C-alpha cells in the first residue's frame, strides 16, 4: 500500500539530503559531534522513510533484504579486520596501529580547540565508516523484516 502522493513527494525530496547529512556525520566523526552509530542511524532513518512511504513490493523490487544484510556484514568484517591488523605490527588487539604506520590519517593534532583536519586520528575514521555502514544495514533490515511481517492491504 503506497501512502498518499504528499508523503511520497516529501520522502523523495528529503531522501538525498538525509543521506548527505548522515554521511557527513560518519566521515567527520573524529572532528565534530557524532560518529559511526549516530551517522548510521540517520542514514537508516532516510531508508526507513522510503520504506514507510512506498509499498513493500515497490521497495523489494529496488533493494532487497539480502543486499542490506550484506552491507551490515561488510561493515562488521571491516571493523574486526581493522582491529586485527594491529597484531601484524606487533601491538595488541584494538591498538590504534595507523598512528605508527605510514603517512595516511596521521597528521599531528595540537591540544585544545583547533580548526580540525580530516587526515588525522589513525584508524578512528575507518572504524567510524565500518560502524556506520553496519548500523545502516542493521537498522534498515530490521524495519524491512517488520514490514514483510504485516499484511498488505491494497
Amino acid at each position, binding site marked *: 500500500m503506497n501512502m498518499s502522493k504528499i508523503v511520497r513527494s516529501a520522502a523523495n525530496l528529503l531522501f538525498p539530503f538525509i543521506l548527505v547529512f548522515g554521511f557527513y556525520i560518519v566521515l567527520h566523526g573524529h572532528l565534530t559531534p557524532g560518529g559511526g552509530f*549516530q551517522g548510521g*542511524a*540517520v542514514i537508516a532513518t532516510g531508508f*526507513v522513510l522510503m*520504506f*514507510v512511504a512506498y509499498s513493500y513490493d515497490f521497495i523489494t523490487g529496488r533493494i532487497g533484504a539480502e543486499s542490506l544484510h550484506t552491507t551490515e556484514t561488510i561493515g562488521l568484517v571491516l571493523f574486526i579486520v581493522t582491529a586485527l591488523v594491529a597484531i601484524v605490527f606487533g601491538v595488541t588487539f584494538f591498538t590504534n596501529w595507523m598512528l605508527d604506520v605510514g603517512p595516511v590519517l596521521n597528521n599531528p593534532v595540537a591540544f585544545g580547540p583547533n580548526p580540525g583536519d580530516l587526515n588525522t586520528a589513525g584508524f578512528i575514521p575507518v572504524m567510524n565508516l565500518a560502524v556506520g555502514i553496519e548500523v545502516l544495514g542493521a*537498522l534498515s533490515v530490521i*524495519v524491512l523484516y517488520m514490514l514483510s511481517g*504485516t499484511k498488505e492491504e491494497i
Partner: protein
Amino acid sequence: MIELVVHAAVLVGLICAALLVIHFRDLLSAAIAFGIFSFLLSLEFYILQAPDVAIAEAGIGAGLTTAIFIVAIRGTRRMEEVKE
C-alpha cells in the same frame, strides 16, 4: 535569560506532547505525537550539552521508532471502519 525561556518552553512542550500521546484515540496521531516527544527530547539533550546523544535520539527516537509504529499501524484498521 533567553536560554532559560527556551529551556522552560522545551520542558513544557515535552510534558504536553507526553500528555497528547495518551489523550489521542487515533493510533496514527498518537504515533506522530510520540515522534514530536522524541524530537523535543533530543532538543533537551542538545540544550544540556550532549550533542552526540541528541543526534542518536533524533535518528532513533524520532525517526526509527515512529516508523516502526507506523509499520505496525499499517497492519490494523482505522477506528471508523470498525464501527460500521
